[in-house]
């Protein structure tokens, strides 16, 4: 049990930080119905911007800076697909490729930044809770605060008029097209907000592990999608608050399973294969289930 507790704590920390990306996908994928593949690049963008700002001596400024960068990335992705006639999947892929260069440029031409001696939000909180009972939990505090703030914001945001408009755009584009809601505007706002969450997630992960690598975000969209789909199997309610909590729960469970698997000597490089398989099962499971009766009948016919 004593070895199990730190395991859960690590899973909680990484799960909560990662849950911000999952919440971003909840907004763009589940609500707006846009498959935003720029997530990987946007995550790294947040990490690199946050790191550069923190290294330059502004640990707190790093957070709004990273989020603003995420807004910019989301804006361009949305602009490409709504105003420039680029397919939505393609615009995400193009953004990803472009962001690779941008991110290296931000990190001053290097693909790795070290923050071992850098003051970050985490080191500040660590100093604050030093010698107290929470001295080991400083990462958890930051991660929890961020997840709670983003989840709370999202909950309120989705009930505002712009939030309802975003949901309607994803739910019935035909209705929105003939209504006074401008689908271009809702798509842009939705992707800007989700971009800011993704970038914040990247920024915090980089600061928690005290380094940024250009690959920090690679595969993030699949990992986040896996978490999102795991979350939606836990909580089937239609209530928005519960769905948001379920999303965070999904991120945690995903990390927990992964952390435990690591303990049982699963090599770390298997993470992306595992998350891909989870996404495939979660998406094709219901499809296969719905097709199974047809398949069974054909099989029966063949046997006769």
């Amino acid at each position, binding site marked *: 049990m004593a070895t199990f507790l730190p395991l859960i704590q690590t899973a909680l920390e990484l799960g909560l930080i990662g849950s911000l990306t999952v919440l971003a996908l909840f907004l763009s994928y589940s609500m707006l119905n846009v498959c935003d593949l720029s997530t990987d690049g946007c995550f790294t963008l947040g990490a690199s911007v946050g790191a550069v700002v923190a290294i330059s001596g502004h640990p707190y400024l790093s957070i709004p800076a990273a989020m603003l960068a995420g807004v910019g990335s989301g804006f361009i992705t949305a602009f490409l697909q709504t105003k420039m006639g680029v397919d939505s999947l393609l615009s995400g892929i193009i953004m990803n490729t472009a962001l690779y260069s941008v991110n290296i440029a931000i990190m001053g031409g290097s693909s790795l930044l070290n923050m071992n001696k850098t003051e970050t939000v985490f080191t500040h909180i660590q100093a604050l809770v030093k010698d107290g009972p929470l001295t080991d939990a400083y990462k958890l505090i930051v991660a929890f605060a961020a997840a709670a703030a983003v989840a709370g914001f999202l909950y309120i945001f989705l009930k505002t008029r712009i939030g309802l408009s975003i949901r309607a755009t994803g739910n*019935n584009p035909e209705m929105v097209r003939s209504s006074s809601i401008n689908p271009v505007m809702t798509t842009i706002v939705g992707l800007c907000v989700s971009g800011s969450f993704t970038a914040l997630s990247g920024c915090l992960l980089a600061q928690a592990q005290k380094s940024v690598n250009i690959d920090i975000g690679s595969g993030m969209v699949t990992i986040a999608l896996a978490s999102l789909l795991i979350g939606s199997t836990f909580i089937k309610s239609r209530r928005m608050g519960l769905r948001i909590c379920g999303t965070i729960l999904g991120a945690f469970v995903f990390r927990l399973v992964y952390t435990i698997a690591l303990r049982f000597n699963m090599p770390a490089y298997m993470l992306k294969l595992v998350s891909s398989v989870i996404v495939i099962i979660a998406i094709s499971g219901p499809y296969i289930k719905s097709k199974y009766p047809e398949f069974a009948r054909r099989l029966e016919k063949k046997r006769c």
Partner: protein
Amino acid sequence: MLSIENISKTFNPGTVNEKRALSSLSINVEDGDFISIIGANGAGKSTLFGAIAGSFLTDEGRIILDGEDITVTPEHIRARSIGRLFQDPMKGTAPDMTIEENLALAAGSGGWLSRITRREREELRQKVALLDMGLEDRMESPVGLLSGGQRQALSLMMATINPPKLLLLDEHTAALDPATSAKVMELTDKIVREEKLTCLMITHNMNSALSSGNRTLMMDEGKVLFDIKGDERAHLSVEDLVRMFRTRSGRELDNDRMLLADT
């Protein structure tokens, strides 16, 4: 009120699928008019609505609504003063959102960051009660659980909750069963009368084309074939309409759906 001057629209120009859907069409709609529009398939009825609502820009001509030239105004801006209902009840509402959320979106009061207040909630509830379908007790239910007729009634309420300058009804009862269809038509008549709306309604039902509203237009090949109102219309029967179509267009009216429709 609404003045349509010589609008034309050709789809897929220069291809084998070229189709002149509207051909120098002009209509003058007076304030408070309730016009029923009939015509065979492909006569350009729905295209006319698309042109008015701004689903596409016309190739020529002008569209003036309430003194304002809206010929090139984007669709979502026009939607502020034009309400529109389609034949498919699924098109007018967001299925995963609740009745209340759908209505609140349509009501659209307050700023972008405003939320539904308790007072609004009560007002919306009272509005829904007017539909007399028991929906006021299901405000928190997702619209996807409602029947087609209930969804269409809700769409009608959403399109008229802020009384539009112009209401476009594109065979909005055609996909419903006869009883529901009659109910939705009754609601339509009531709302149009009470709000004194100006309304254009496409119908395939020649009886309701003559019984609803104050004017009837017959369209053919992207043009208005005839436009009848007043005394002339009051004494017209469905047989007269068919005969008028034959003499004006030189063809038989060969639309079974229009001829066979009863009630």
